[in-house]
């Protein structure tokens, strides 16, 4: 077996050294009646590298890859061009095969990268401090809600209706076990986010208000007035961003008064990967909240010779020290995805990020203008960056399926996100990025026209 270096003569020598006559002697503590006497039946035996690759390629080819079709899906996962050097660098064995940097003397590469990552995220979000990443956007969103309860000592949570429904579902699932009381609502198909409706739901017992920015329909809510209303009642504003590229074009949530900013970082460096692994981003606007944050933090310090270096710090919040009193049970971050994000954003730089956002917006405007020319199609959004909602006047989910059969990945129907909600069933979310060509837009427009007629 190619991954096992011991030879039979090695095994013999080693058994002799440990005083065992056979390998079974080392499994003597496993009850005999539970011990398996041979390979588990029904599972295949070992395979050559070539044979495994062939099997996996067969499975891979049964999927329609985004690059092989006009592609317009978003709703929390976005396709962007990832420079080749990102994947090259994250595959360096010193990054790929390293452990969590608990031994800082031999992990400065990971630690410095995390320090840079934290700084990039904090700046992008307009916050004072960001952590070293979380599992993904949805779990980061829940952790933010839990943190708000710790900070405010209140248990009533107001979720905006225009929060990604899967994120809302994760929050509601977790809240069942922490007795947080979650207030949510369905979004209404209207041009502008319903800020006033949201504000009227905030009261003196509200711990936090959770608002997606840009929201699930692609609209851009003005967070400032929500922040003001929340703060007036002693509640925190949690802003959720699922598309970091958008923040190259619009004001940061921190700048608008959000207290905790969380999001999905997948759009930069990570790729679609059928939903994971992704990259949870987590930041706080005010340094005073640092000790209530979940997740790992990397901090600057000095070594015994006075050289600058980095360590994981403030670990007294964490489970391996605090056990049942920890701020979260989380024991890992999404290190390699954070590295990919860090490298991609370094390659872009501020100039590249702004250009990328602008190019996304330019193409999205072209797409929106073209698609509303299709008879029966209306644009919902008053505002958007690189994703918007169309109303098709008929069941959008059926249209998406029909177009998929023609090799066009048209977008995410609201029926897919809100199954069984009649009022939303004609909505189609369309995401447009720099990977979308004008030809793709034309293909979608004609395919839609045919499908709707």
């Amino acid at each position, binding site marked *: 077996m190619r*991954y*096992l270096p011991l*030879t039979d003569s090695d095994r013999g020598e*080693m058994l002799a050294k*440990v005083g065992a006559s056979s390998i079974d002697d080392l499994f*003597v503590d496993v*009850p005999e009646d539970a011990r398996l006497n041979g*390979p588990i*039946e029904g*599972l295949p035996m*070992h395979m050559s590298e070539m044979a495994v690759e062939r099997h996996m*390629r067969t*499975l891979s080819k*049964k999927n329609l890859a985004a690059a*092989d079709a006009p*592609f317009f899906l978003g709703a*929390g996962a976005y396709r962007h061009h990832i*420079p080749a050097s990102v994947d090259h660098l994250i595959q360096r*064995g*010193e990054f790929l095969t390293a452990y969590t940097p608990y031994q800082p003397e031999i992990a*400065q590469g990971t630690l*410095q990268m995390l320090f840079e990552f934290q700084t990039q995220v904090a700046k992008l979000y307009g916050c004072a401090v960001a952590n070293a990443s979380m*599992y*993904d956007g949805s779990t980061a969103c829940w952790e933010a809600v839990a943190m708000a309860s710790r900070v405010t000592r209140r248990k009533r949570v107001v979720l905006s209706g225009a929060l990604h429904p899967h994120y809302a579902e994760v929050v509601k*699932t977790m809240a069942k076990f922490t*007795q947080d009381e979650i207030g949510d609502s369905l979004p209404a198909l209207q041009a502008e986010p319903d800020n006033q409706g949201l504000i009227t739901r905030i009261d003196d017992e509200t711990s936090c208000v959770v608002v997606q920015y840009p929201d699930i329909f692609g609209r*851009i809510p*003005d967070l400032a007035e929500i922040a003001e209303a929340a703060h007036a009642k002693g509640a925190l504003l949690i802003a959720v961003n699922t598309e970091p590229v958008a923040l*190259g*074009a619009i004001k940061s949530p921190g700048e608008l008064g959000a207290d905790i900013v969380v999001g999905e970082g997948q759009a930069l460096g990570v790729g679609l*990967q*059928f939903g*994971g*692994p992704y990259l949870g981003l987590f930041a706080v606007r005010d340094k005073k909240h640092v000790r209530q944050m979940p997740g790992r933090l990397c901090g600057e310090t000095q070594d*015994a010779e006075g050289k600058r270096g980095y*360590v994981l710090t*403030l670990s007294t919040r964490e*489970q*391996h020290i605090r056990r*049942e009193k920890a701020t*979260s049970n*989380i*024991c*890992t*971050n*999404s290190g390699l*995805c954070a590295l990919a994000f860090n490298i991609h954003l370094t*390659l*872009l*730089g*501020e100039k590249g990020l*702004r250009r990328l956002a602008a*190019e996304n*917006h*330019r193409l999205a*405007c072209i797409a929106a203008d073209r698609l509303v020319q299709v008879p029966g199609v209306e644009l919902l959004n008053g*505002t958007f960056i690189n994703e918007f909602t169309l109303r098709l006047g008929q069941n959008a989910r059926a249209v*998406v*399926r029909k177009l998929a059969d023609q090799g066009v990945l048209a977008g995410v129907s609201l029926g*897919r996100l809100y199954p069984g909600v009649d009022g939303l069933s004609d909505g189609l979310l369309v995401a447009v990025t720099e990977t979308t060509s004008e030809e793709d837009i034309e293909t979608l427009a004609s395919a839609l026209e045919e499908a709707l007629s």
Partner: protein
Amino acid sequence: MNSPNQSGWKPEMNASEDSIHSGPATVSGNRALMLEEPLLFEIGHIETTGVDLPDTDIAVGNRLGGMERSDPIGLPGLSEPETIRHYTRLSRQNYGIDLGLFPLGSCTMKHNPRLNEKVARMPGFADVHPLQPASTIRGALEAINELAHWLIDLTGMHGVAMSPKAGAHGELCGILCIRAALEARGDAREIVLVPESAHGTNPATAAFAGYRVEDIPATDEGRVDLEALKARLGPDVAAVMITNPNTCGLFERDMKAISDAVHEAGALVYCDGANFNAIVGKVRPGDLGVDAMHINLHKTFSTPHGGGGPGSGPVVLSEALSPYGPLPFTARTKEGVVHLVEEENAADYGHTDAFGRMTAFHGQMGMFTRALTYMRSHGADGLRQVAEDAVLNANYVLRSLDDLLDAPFGASGPCMHEALFGDEGFGGDLSTLDLAKAMIDEGYHPMTMYFPLVVHGAMLIEPTETESKAALDQFIASMRSLAERARAGDESMKQAPFHAPRRRLDETQAARKPVLVWEPSDE
């Protein structure tokens, strides 16, 4: 191939003076291949970009509703050559499995096969959106379903929740299933029993799920005290969380009796699967009465640790708990078509009691494809050999060091995949930490330290099955030398490491005045 160090350290030698020939200081601060690298923020510029993009003007005719950014963000960029050099230099300050033995107990740092990486990057897996229509993702769902069946078959369990994102997330999933099952039968229980030797995530998870945590006592030989456990069980106990093999590196031989007693008391058994590598293909947790166990794909099934994630923590479930597993998951119909089961169609599959959803999408697909590739490579026969070699390697280390390092449970029988030592017999005021830092100078990543808490100055060594005998012999030679120095009270070890990119770092300063983001200096 390296041979074991034959030079032999002798107690009268002073390592710090004998082996340091640092030479004159260099202007750059570099030392040949050991290169210092500034922060991105010190070398990059906000006008620099390494990506060619059109200079689109967003100011005119946009649809941003007046929300456009005006102030600079403060994100410096680097050109592509500078980027490659920056991160390549950083990478060289890291230790990784590719460089050498990584004996972190309970972390299973084994070789990461590169075929896994190649497969995960196939376009049908890497470039597919989680919300694509079913007709365009058949192969992805089949891959998840195939992996699910491997996990079920290898553990002898009934079902599996694939979505948890990491081990601790999987633990949470398992405990939430237990709570949902107990609530469904109207049985509010308050206590979860956890051994003192457990991973810190266990009590943190139980506490999150609303349970009070109590310790389970251990016997002198390092195993759960069955009689004491039985005495504590009662109508207030919801679950027992056990790690098997446990964190002392021992198999809980009474596991079946423990499970029976727990079930008799109306409670459920959670097994921490972090140490599954020791028993994969040798014994199935389902046959020992386990109700839920998470599996770290990044440990047993070789997906890379990546410097701290991403992990993946599917949870296998007994028949009693399967109905409560979270959405989504995959199901294969009689016709052989694999479907995604979510909130809208769960009833069609009779899965109406799911406790909810743990994450936005379907789990760590990129880790699933790597793990499945690994399982297919080893096959049922190879995975069994994995466990055997992992256990043999650990016992070889245990018996090659137990004359010099105190092995508190050395008399409790063979260890499983990890060997546990304590600091008894160290001279002067030398500690486990000092020995660990001296390992760095020998070219090794330190072992897991001060864990489990039940052993003073614990050192938990897990070599894994992917180490050759020659590599183990070299490691043993280093460890013997270090153990002798520690016993002799060699004070120079307190200064180690000498040869790493950094000397010991001041963690107190880092925590007292946290600097967590870069800020321009005032100078």
